[in-house]
């Protein structure tokens, strides 16, 4: 047992770190540090930089542009991305639909979609949730009726992140209305430019626009865009939700946030002394660091177990807690940063277009509250923490 990285792993980390340091555009890095929204162009530009290095779809098999890295290297790579901080490759393509297409898609689908995902030529979004199908995802009602060589899709998806930027959406649709819940669901790829697709923005409490509703009104989709077999979509969705185990806790994000909190708390003065010297503040911060270190080791246990298992079998039981603990800790960092900013967190209303310092405060102060509100989503998306606990109770504790 040795929890330290080997010299080879450290060399790999240094290689990744120095590449990111050199290649990440300063403007993107600043936005990440300050908690400002990235533009579509920012995300595309960075992913193409990674793609030129051969690292945009590091998690994929080599034949489709992946790196062949093991779980520990994958982990190190993502942690370095998070700590830079840099945007990660667009998840909807790289970590979600990409692996599904690789595992279950046709040869034609692979050739058509995968290279364009890697280079972010196609921006994908996820069409799973519906107004009446949230945690109970299998209650989804959007239908796809077979009509000759096409499906005709009707219904509504919601909470769709970046639908406003998307070229394609991967959807769970009901293809057999007579079958019980999970049985009649298929996995369908839909061109966002299709006739009958309408996107409506949803403004969230942080004041931003990330999520949307998508309406489908007699949208005709070529049957070739069905992934795998009809009515097997639920299995593919489960594969998708379970396929990312090596970075679900986002430890690097929280590490970067703690570093940032320390930097800002050293700058903020309370009665002539830095906030960072305040005993109660320090205890709070130290307490969060302990939680984060524990989570980091737990994450590494899962990564090491993934390597031993070499992709076979069920994930380590500890992996189930990563999402829950990871979200709680990320949210705690956002809360702490809000406290660091203090009264200066009250001015509100930062848009995408604001650049330099503002008359009523500094940029880093302006983003604390929106980030705090925005990050409440982390314990909701991808299966709420309560759903995660149901899963742990059933599958690990046997309750």
């Amino acid at each position, binding site marked *: *047992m*040795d*929890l*330290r*990285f*080997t010299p080879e*792993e450290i060399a790999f980390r240094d290689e990744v770190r120095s590449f990111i340091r050199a290649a990440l555009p300063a403007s993107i890095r600043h936005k990440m540090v300050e908690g400002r929204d990235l533009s579509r162009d920012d995300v595309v530009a960075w992913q193409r930089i990674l793609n030129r290095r051969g690292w945009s779809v590091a998690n994929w098999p080599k034949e489709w542009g992946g790196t062949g890295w093991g779980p*520990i290297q994958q982990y190190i790579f993502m942690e370095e991305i998070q*700590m830079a901080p840099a945007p990660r490759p667009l998840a909807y393509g790289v970590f979600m639909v990409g692996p599904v297409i690789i595992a279950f898609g046709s040869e034609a689908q692979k050739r058509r979609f995968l290279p364009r995902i890697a280079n972010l030529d196609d921006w994908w979004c996820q069409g799973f949730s519906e107004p009446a199908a949230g945690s109970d995802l299998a209650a989804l009602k959007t239908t796809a009726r077979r009509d000759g060589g096409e499906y005709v899709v009707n219904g509504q998806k919601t909470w769709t992140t970046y639908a406003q930027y998307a070229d394609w959406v991967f959807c769970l649709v009901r293809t057999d209305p007579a079958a019980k819940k999970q049985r009649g669901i298929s996995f369908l790829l839909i061109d966002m430019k299709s006739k009958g697709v309408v996107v409506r923005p949803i403004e969230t409490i942080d004041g931003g626009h990330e999520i949307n509703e998508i309406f489908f009104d007699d949208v005709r989709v070529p049957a070739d865009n069905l992934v795998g077999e009809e009515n097997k979509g639920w299995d593919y969705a489960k594969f998708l939700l379970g396929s990312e185990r090596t970075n679900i806790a986002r430890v690097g994000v929280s*590490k970067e946030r*703690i*570093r940032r909190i*320390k930097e800002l708390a050293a700058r903020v003065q309370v009665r002539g002394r830095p906030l960072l010297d305040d*005993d109660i503040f*320090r*205890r709070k*911060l*130290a*307490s969060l*660091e*302990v*939680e*984060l*270190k*524990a*989570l*980091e*080791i*737990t994450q*590494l*246990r899962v990564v*090491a*177990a993934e390597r*031993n298992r070499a992709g076979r079998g069920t994930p380590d*039981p*500890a992996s189930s*807690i990563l999402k*829950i*603990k990871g979200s709680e800790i990320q949210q705690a960092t956002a809360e702490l940063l809000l406290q660091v900013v203090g009264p200066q967190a009250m001015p509100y209303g930062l848009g995408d277009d604001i650049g330099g310092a503002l008359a009523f405060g500094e940029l880093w102060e302006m983003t604390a509250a929106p980030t705090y509100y925005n990050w409440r989503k982390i314990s909701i998306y991808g299966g709420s923490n*309560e759903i995660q*606990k*149901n899963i*742990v*109770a059933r599958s*690990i*504790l*046997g*309750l």
Partner: protein
Amino acid sequence: MDFDLTEDQRMIQDSVERLMADRYTFELRQKYRREAEGWSRAVWRKYAELGLLALPFDQQDGGLSGTPVETMIVMESFGRALALEPFFGTIILAGGILRHGAGAAQREAIIPRIVAGEMTLALAHHEREARYARDHVAVTAKRSGDGWILQGRKDLVLQGDSVDRLIVSARTAGATQDADGVGLFLVDARAQGVSRHGYPTQDGLRAATVTLDSVHASTADVVGHPAQGLSILARVFDEATAAICAEAVGAMAALHALTVDYLKQREQFGVKIGSFQALQHRAVDMFMSLEQARSMALFATMMVSSSNAAERGRAMSAAKVQIGRSGRYIGEQAIQLHGGIGMTMEYKAGHYFKRLTMLDILLGDSEHHLGELAAGGGLFQDE
């Protein structure tokens, strides 16, 4: 990076787990607890036969040159079984002092007897006024001819009423909390001038107040330099912290499993109470707390070998914070989920709860260590 045990480590784990399953049922434990010394000599001999008492000592001294991982394995198993024997005091604390401080003659005279199960020891360091300060030593050692005269009182000497020998920290120079001027003295527990008052601790184990009245120690009884004892102790306390963390994880894991089993068996309102979501989620919260604690025990085990004392100290404090919090949470919730039966002495859960509470307090509780960590600038310093 890997978390795998070696073949040898797995064998040690198997044999100690087997021994405890065999010789440490809850009923047997209750019996051992009522023995004169509050623990079982027969089981202690079994530990010796299995080589557990030899594990951390150097091969040269008759030990097995085990690493902190072996210690972790054994302590976790002891935590699971709620073992009563003076392993922590003899092997981890006193044994640690001997490993880090003793001269060749002392090691030769003592370690083989420990390994054979013939001698038990306790560390007499804590004093009532110290609270969690580790450098507080008021007991004095004054030069007398070619030896020393020890005078004063030590408290909370773990199993000090039943051990054969004590290692007493005493001030050879300087004021009560000076970093220098503390020596460590080997003292026969039955030596003239030593009086021991034994009492039970909250977890059903025992401790003693040791009064030293003009106790003579020879030069040969001094472990290490007579003014540098605290630096030996600092190292040993870090190792002891890692060991405690592992023991606590064993106890937490067993207590959590016991509680989940109970949820699957107990029926109310015509259903298993484990079917209630509120209780399921509580059991999951306990599980998360356990896994976080396990991770920090692993972290402590890894970091305890670090030669960087500041880094090592931060890691031990961080681990102790997590262990203390997880232990308290799992202990309290286990009692709550069991309901009335959890409150009784005839059921195992309460005993785990109390041992976990003790392990939090031992060597500084979670609040104390959080303060240490905070004062030192936090855990993530060079990343």
